[in-house]
């Protein structure tokens, strides 16, 4: 099932002031959910990613894949969002996998020394097999 949905508008803090919605593709099958955010993830857009991640985790999938191939930029608010999701996923026995990272995005995980904390693979095919 493939559905392209705009993430719910998160009105926490200043997020709702951006005037733009981040598009996040949601692909769901029996065992996993794949989220593909489109666009830059910063303080303006990370609340929308957070809403989508939490929504996906509420379905208790065995695996949640975040495909970052359409994400050219991420700051620490995006990383914090993913850390929060990873911790929630661990508590609910969901495996969180990141894939499709551009070098520019990967570098922030390396700077924050989180590249070894997350499961990071090249693409969605690899993510399905880990």
């Amino acid at each position, binding site marked *: 099932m493939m559905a392209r949905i705009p993430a719910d508008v998160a009105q926490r803090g200043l997020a709702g002031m951006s*005037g*733009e919605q981040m598009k996040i593709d949601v692909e769901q099958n029996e065992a996993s959910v794949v989220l593909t955010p489109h666009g830059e993830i*910063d303080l*303006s857009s990370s609340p929308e990613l957070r809403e989508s991640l939490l929504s996906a985790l509420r379905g208790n999938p065995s695996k949640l894949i975040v495909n970052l191939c359409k994400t050219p930029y991420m*700051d*620490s608010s995006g990383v914090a969002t993913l850390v929060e999701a990873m911790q929630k996923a661990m508590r609910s026995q969901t495996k969180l996998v990141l894939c499709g990272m551009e*070098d520019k995005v990967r570098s922030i995980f390396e700077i*924050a*020394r989180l590249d070894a904390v997350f499961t990071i693979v090249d693409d969605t095919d690899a993510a399905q097999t880990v």
Partner: protein
Amino acid sequence: MSQSSAKPDGIHLRLEMLSQPRYLSGARELVAAVAKRLGFTEQACGQIALAIDEALCNVMCHGYGRDPNGVIWLSIEPLGGHAPDNGATGIKVVIEDEAKQIDPAKIKSRDLDDVRPGGLGVHIIHEVMDSVCFQKRETKGMRLSLEKRIDDDGADSGGCCTEGACGHER
């Protein structure tokens, strides 16, 4: 701008913005574009933009407590020469605000072994930039001065504090 007409304060470009996340993208793209013209590599430009983004986020979230009406000034100047035909040796970015003042010595990155959401901004800034100096402004608010030098290959020159009295640790 000729060398003789360079402004006494050294600032070549100054941006005034409200403390709203929707302006982060424009601010970091501006800094990245200037850094590119000064001779930084694409990778270094991206990292400088990230550091500026993190610094602005800190002002918005912690300085102004997410008040969208706060004012932030972002100033850019090249290091190593003010004339347009002089090769720059780096970039200096100064971020000023009128938010609450805090002791610069207390602005430190957290323990990265404690994996939790948030608190990475100061670490990233220190990791990317060569010089990081937090100061209280004379009247109100804070001033953050950031410098990054261009290596011979235009790449990241690593980071170390060149400001001795900043009250911060790397």
